[in-house]
């Protein structure tokens, strides 16, 4: 399949930053497309994994951070496991997501960034996840208040959702970690 690169749209290439963040050398990719063949979501996105690599090689800029794959990728690591050149594409996807978050440039397809944020916020607050608060915050954030609600009564009855957060975790260390990570990002 042909990959069309629109010259006027392209900003400065981000290949070097992606390689520095992920520690992965993308120049060795020869487009065998094994990553795309094994990717469970390749058929659901416009640009599959091998195309993302090719675009980066062809000096893609910030516009690649809008790719659907960033937030459809499951981090299942099948691509990394099967690459004949040992490219850790899962690490490249983490680097792309990180760049997308840092630059706030991308459209951030879907609600995954919001989910990750509320998930990590409950961890920061309690030291462990607290599903009740996480789900509530996520639902308010997406305005999809009614999704999955029909399962709630059964899950509560089966005690598959904890009513209260734990108080046993070492919250002090966890808060320190989040503080240091924020300093490290320079934001």
């Amino acid at each position, binding site marked *: 399949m042909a990959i069309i690169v629109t010259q006027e749209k392209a900003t400065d290439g981000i290949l070097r930053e992606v390689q520095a963040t992920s520690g992965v050398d993308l120049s060795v990719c020869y487009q065998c497309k094994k990553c795309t063949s094994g990717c469970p979501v390749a058929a659901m996105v416009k640009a599959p994994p091998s195309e993302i690599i090719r675009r980066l090689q062809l000096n893609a800029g910030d516009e690649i951070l809008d790719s659907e794959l960033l937030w459809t990728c*499951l*981090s*299942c690591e099948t691509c990394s496991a099967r690459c004949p050149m040992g490219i850790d594409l*899962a690490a490249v996807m983490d680097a792309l997501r990180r760049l997308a978050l840092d630059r706030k440039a991308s459209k951030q397809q879907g609600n995954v960034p919001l*989910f990750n944020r509320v998930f990590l916020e409950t961890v920061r607050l309690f030291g462990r996840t607290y599903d009740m608060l996480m789900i509530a915050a996520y639902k308010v954030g997406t305005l999809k208040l009614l999704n999955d609600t029909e399962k709630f009564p059964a899950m509560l009855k089966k005690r598959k959702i904890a009513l209260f957060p734990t108080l046993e975790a*070492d919250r002090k260390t966890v808060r320190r970690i989040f503080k240091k990570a924020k300093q490290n990002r320079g934001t």
Partner: protein
Amino acid sequence: MKYAYFPGCSAESTARDMHESTLVVSERLGIDLQEPRGWTCCGATAGHQTDPLLAASLPAATLVKVKDMGLDLVANCAACYNRLKMANHLVLTSPDMRRKVADAIGRDYDGSVKIRHFMEVLLDDVGLDTIQNTLQRTLKGLKVACYYGCLLVRPHEAMQFDDPENPTSLDRLVRTLGAETLDWPHKVECCGGGLSMTRTDVVIRLTESILSMAKLAGADCIAVSCPMCQINLDMRQLDIQKQLGKRYDMPIVYVTQLIGLCLGISADKLGFNKLMVPASTVIEAVGDAA
């Protein structure tokens, strides 16, 4: 046999059944599990998708506590197992990351705590012979599709768990119980993992493909060892029925629940009542050991 035990956050919510069955099975098999005081979340997928320092430091905060205990650390949740092992891998392969992690958690951590999956303890330390000799019941006649998912086997360099494309650990355990394990191609396919709430459409497609393949192979149930695989394959059957009109009625059970049944432990104590798709076919398949 004494170990530190990392239950993981889902042990306190969606995977109480996994946690409870692990505890009772351990007690019967003489495995002593000790929770590290104040253990904290491993960060899961959200952690590594957001920030590499969070991804390494969150598990390291618990690992450094386990180091003080002087024990190997056992995890049963595949996601926790993966992130704990990745934290070891990251501090062992990058001196820069080790320095940053030390600054974040307030102590140096050298990556030396040995991390084991509960199945590895059963296979390597307890041994299949001992398990077989302890069994009071059998699952003879039950056809089981063993499903490993992603996080146990990938990335292989860091996990070193079994064969990454065709693992057999779970199969060997299930066969010890007298059940028949099936050859099927979806052992290490992804169930959709952490996108359960955010991209339910993707999860429905992936779980449907796994369920239909298990059914085609003739499975009576799917055995898992990961809370995310379990809840996706179990709970999403309700959505598959509603949205696609396909009904699977496929019980998704933890391997610890199957072992517990054969040790003569009651289904209630093993958390069978917490499954969304009832596993009565599995419970009814239990027979007296020869």
